[in-house]
């Protein structure tokens, strides 16, 4: 048999595409075969760089084998198999397809030989996990999905920036252990921690995961955080900072899970908590601790998927998700209850379950490094895990007071998936056979915990608070509360901030525009008073005979007798009304008529009045023929003026609605079509008092 070096992720991608396009009858077959074939391909990849291709000016290493990578890829493929089993009949095809593509991204990251490939598959995961969240279909799922996507895309670009900084500054994008000594490595760490759900940016996880469908949650729980753990093991082993980050995650997860009421949010917070153990293990950084982190990721995927499956089954048959609405389901759902309890025991690291095997590795590693405080906190946290996930979840969902619900047992395919994972949890927990070692050889030789030592350390502590009195702890009451998390910052504060910024910017713009328009208007009026069509320079001045003709000029000016008297006075006589200039210098005397006057082709002295009366202006030729305005102008041929610009302005002046007509949309704040309307001329600013207050530019 020759060696196949097709990237295993491609099998999965191919399967995902096929699931989307094959006929529904073939879909189950394709969906089940895909993870199995991928698993086969994963085990064909030998150690070392197996496949490289030129990309972006680099020789990127598409596939690099190794024990650690194989371990992670194996569990991802297994998880995909279980997920397919669980969601085959329940999920829509696009959710199934997206979920397989999501798993493909995770497998691609596990085999990525360098940072570029890792990043490409990283983004692939972000995309398709968003689709899985969106498949929830509700409004809450939409919002959560968009927040989730933005968080991951921004986290992705931070990672990208870090990778590129490393590439430019060191010339290498190899995956190797880095030290936190430059901007680039900090950015890489930050990008990884976003996906690892490290506080204070962890809130995306409990925000998005519970909004998915009953089946989507199972997929989501497995891949994103665990690939981040793998990347941390590969890139930042032994970084001391990670110990503290991990401890913080551990306690953050416990605290919030205890306060939570939604059953899948409890499980989501417990993901943060469990990933905290792994991050802590990476921070400790000895070979044993790294093995522990990897093994814990392996077992965590199994039991967390099992827990999400039991929660999903409950959601599927009851349609309820709040602990306060559930209870007493064990009567009619004994099978789901049993599987849920196995998962709960595993996550609490109960002896003979999978969690016991792996968690003790990390805790022991802390002890071996003589990190006393870390050891103590981890052991204490194990007890906390027992409280929230080991007891709270199964107790309130399956036991406790009877909620009156009598749902049927979960469908067969869901049960199949649950029994598979429950069996795996118990098999791995059987230390005498060291199944974990047989499933996936760990790098650097595995030192499995010896039962006596771990029993004395971990299990004693984690089983001690497990007395029946625990549910009486006041924090574990079922309450209908909402816990405030850091996501308040971007769910509420950022939106409010944006609105505020927008309002400020709009006001500023409005003020600036108003000021500019006013300035232009004033300048224009000033110019027109001397240079305009009726300005001082363009005005005919009365001699004895002309004075009679000029009488018509100010006649329409609101009965301003003073102007008439002033204009009709004999030359040389004093002004009868001193202090009141000619009508052209006092625009208010002309009333509400339009201000704009075109010099050039429009040399009609009575133009403002004609406009005010809604008449056409007199063209130049006619004006010259008939002298200066006068009655003859009323009989002017109303043909359109040859100057198109002038005609347009003129028509617009006629189109203006009367002052009394109501705006069609008086209450709207926004123009409906989004396009700018024809603006009023520059002079329009003078009539701002008549303008509609909305933005329709009337």
């Amino acid at each position, binding site marked *: 048999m020759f060696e196949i070096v097709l990237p295993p992720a491609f099998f999965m991608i191919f399967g995902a595409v096929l699931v989307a396009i094959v006929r*529904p009858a073939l879909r189950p077959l394709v969906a089940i075969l895909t993870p199995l074939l991928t698993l086969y391909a994963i085990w064909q990849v030998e150690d070392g760089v197996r496949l490289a291709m030129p990309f972006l000016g680099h020789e990127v290493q598409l596939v690099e084998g190794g024990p650690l990578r194989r371990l992670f890829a194996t569990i991802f493929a297994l998880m995909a198999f279980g997920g397919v089993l669980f969601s085959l009949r329940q999920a829509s095809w696009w959710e199934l397809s997206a979920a397989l593509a999501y798993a493909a991204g995770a497998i691609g990251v596990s085999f990525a030989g360098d940072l570029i490939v890792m990043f490409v598959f990283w983004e692939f995961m972000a995309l398709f996990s968003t689709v899985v969240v969106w498949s929830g279909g509700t409004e809450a799922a939409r919002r959560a999905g968009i927040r989730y996507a933005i968080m991951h895309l921004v986290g992705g670009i931070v990672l990208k920036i870090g990778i590129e900084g490393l590439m430019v500054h060191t010339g290498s994008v190899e995956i190797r252990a880095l030290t936190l000594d430059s901007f680039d490595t900090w950015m890489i760490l930050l990008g990884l921690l976003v996906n690892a759900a490290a506080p204070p940016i962890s809130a995306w996880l409990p925000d998005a995961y519970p909004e998915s*469908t009953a089946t989507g949650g199972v997929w989501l729980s497995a891949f994103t955080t665990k690939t981040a753990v793998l990347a941390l093991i590969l890139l930042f082993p032994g970084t001391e900072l990670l110990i503290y980050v991990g401890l913080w995650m551990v306690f953050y997860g416990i605290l919030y899970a205890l306060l939570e009421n939604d059953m899948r949010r409890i499980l989501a917070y417990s993901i943060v908590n469990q990933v905290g153990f792994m991050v802590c293990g990476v921070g400790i950084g000895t070979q044993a601790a790294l093995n522990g982190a990897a093994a814990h990721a392996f077992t965590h995927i199994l039991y967390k998927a099992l827990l999400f499956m039991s929660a999903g089954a409950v959601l599927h048959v009851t349609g309820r998700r709040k602990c306060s609405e559930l209870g007493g389901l064990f009567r009619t759902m004994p099978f789901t209850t049993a599987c849920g309890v196995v998962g709960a025991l595993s996550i609490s690291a109960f002896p003979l379950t999978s969690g016991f095997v792996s968690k003790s590795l990390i805790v022991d590693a802390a002890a071996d490094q003589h990190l006393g405080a870390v050891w103590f906190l981890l052991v204490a946290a194990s007890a906390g895990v027992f409280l929230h996930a080991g007891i709270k979840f199964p107790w309130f969902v399956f036991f406790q007071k009877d909620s009156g619900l009598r749902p049927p047992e979960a469908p067969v395919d869901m049960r199949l998936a649950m029994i598979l994972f429950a069996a795996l949890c118990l098999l791995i927990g059987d230390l005498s056979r060291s199944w974990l070692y047989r499933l996936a050889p760990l790098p650097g030789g595995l030192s499995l915990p010896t039962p006596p030592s771990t029993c004395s350390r971990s299990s004693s502590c984690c089983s001690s608070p497990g007395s029946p009195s625990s549910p009486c702890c006041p924090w574990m009451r079922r309450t209908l509360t909402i816990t405030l998390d850091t996501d308040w910052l971007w769910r509420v504060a950022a939106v409010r901030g944006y609105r505020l910024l927008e309002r400020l910017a709009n006001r500023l713009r409005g003020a600036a525009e108003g000021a500019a328009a006013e300035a232009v208007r004033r300048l224009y009026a000033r110019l027109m008073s001397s240079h305009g069509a009726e300005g001082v320079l363009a005005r005919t001045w009365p001699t004895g005979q002309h004075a009679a003709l000029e009488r018509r000029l100010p006649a329409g000016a609101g009965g301003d007798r003073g102007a008439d008297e002033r204009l009709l006075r004999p030359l040389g006589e004093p002004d009868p009304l001193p202090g009141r200039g000619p009508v052209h210098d006092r625009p208010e005397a002309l009333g509400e008529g339009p201000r704009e006057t075109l010099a050039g082709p429009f040399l009609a002295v009575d133009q403002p009045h004609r406009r005010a009366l809604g008449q056409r202006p007199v063209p130049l030729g006619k004006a010259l023929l008939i002298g200066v305005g006068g009655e003859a102008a009323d009989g002017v041929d109303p043909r359109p003026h040859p100057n198109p610009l002038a005609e347009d302005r003129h028509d617009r002046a006629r189109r203006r609605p009367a002052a009394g007509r109501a705006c069609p949309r008086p209450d709207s704040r926004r123009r409906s079509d989004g396009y700018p309307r*024809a603006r009023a001329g520059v002079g329009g600013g003078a009539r701002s008092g008549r303008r509609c207050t909305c933005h329709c530019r009337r």
Partner: protein
Amino acid sequence: MIAAHWLGLAVAVPFAGALLIALAGRWPNLRDGVSLATAVALFGAVLMALRGLLAGEPMTLALVELFPGLALALHTEPLSILFASLASGLWIVTAVYAIGYMRGLGEKHQTRFYCCFAVSLGAAIGVAFSANLLTLFVFYELLTFATYPLVAHKESDEARSGARTYLAVLLASSILFLLPAIAWTYALAGTLDFRLGGILPRGVEPLSAVLLLALFVLGTAKAAVMPVHRWLPAAMVAPTPVSALLHAVAVVKAGVFAIVKVVLYVFGTEMLGRFPAERLLVWLAGFTIVAASLVALRQQNLKRMLAYSTVGQLSYVVLATLVLTPFAEIGAALHIVAHAFGKITLFFAAGAIYVASKKTELGELGGIGRRMPITMLAFAIGALSMIGVPPTAGFASKWYIIAGAFQLDDYFVLAVITLSTGLNAAYFLPVVFRAFFREEERPPAKAHGEAPWPMVAALATTALLTLLFFFYNGPVVEPRGRPRGTRRMSGQEHWLARPRTIRWLWRIFGLLLAAALLAQWFDPRAWSFRSRRAVRLPCPLRLPRLRGDGAVREADRARAQASRRLLRPRCLRSSCRPPSS
């Protein structure tokens, strides 16, 4: 015929095509055929010019000497051939699309439309191939005027007003800023020719050099840097093929292309690098990116949102150019291409939605992805490219821009790109969600499926190009091809691991996919999104009619019913749960 003559031919072909289109105006089929043939001929001429360039022949062609020492002349180099082949290649796709669009809507004055379209393309090619600033200016202005009738095509008040804004901003900026800048350059350098490394003398004062650059950046308003961007949203009243090719590719790229040319061939990166005040323009471009994204976030009209997105994305190119490092220049060139592919796809999709359903507002798009799956899938790919996510073209260009920023350790640029990525996701993703995962608010007045097939074919092509450019961007990054013997990984590789094998595996992968698709017999029911009404897909084997939805033929209906009986054994809904007691 020497190779340089291909340049002249390339510029002449669209104008000749415009003439022929005008002559053939009475026969719509002939006219559309001429339009398509012109596009193909232009692309061929550009490819021949590319061949001449690769063969190393001299590629300069003087046309007319206007003043002593100042001639209208054509010239080409890798960047201009990139722009020219991009515009002409996408014109072919757009010509096909425009046929579907204009006929689908029954638009008037189609001859004028195609005629002006060809002239605009000719002007854009002229901008691409200009050998000096004067030629560039002439073609740049010609482009402005040729596009005006296209923007005002509808002849409504709105269209006229938008076109007036368009003309006013573009003309005012080019006369007020660009022309003085060119004259000033002539006074300083004594020539207007483009030369690698710049033509300005070494002794130019920093202040005047930066002022000159600012005049160039603001003068080429087609690049839509923030104070002079208002024309772009105003021009969205144009028919969608115009928005797609001209206001996402040809016109706006002519603007950024001019800026890139000025930076590389008039100033020279080395010279500009000595002026710290050049940072002001970097800040301006960065501000434009963020502010345009913020404005786009609040848009309710699809095309208007895309216009503001274009404003932001163009400033990416300007920003990358002004970062002045080698990687950033590659990134600018890549982004010209990547944005062209992505944005033309988005506009095509917007137009297809309009033709099929008459919807223009974002709020109306609920559930449209179920009626028009190919269109909205293409839209999603374009949107991802705008955000810069693999596997789309936008990833590659952003990659090089970031790398270029790191060559200077320019943290401002990094911050801008991070912020803009988040904002782009924030305004594009809701559209995608709404299209696929929401129900329709109310059933449309007339049941519809996909738009006419020429439109769907065009947008599927550009979406595929967006995806392919992620993998095959080598020709842009290394125009001369990869030097031999630079590949590592020689000794150890297995024959299956060789790039050639991988390429073949990719092809087999693609063929398998195609086979799987064909195996579906294009049965729409197999794609059903749980909707009662099946989605109708265009079938390449049996082209549907151009106009209208058409009735499903009797045979189709019978087959569909048969497949529904066979293939729907049980309810697949997740919401179809057994009732809880």
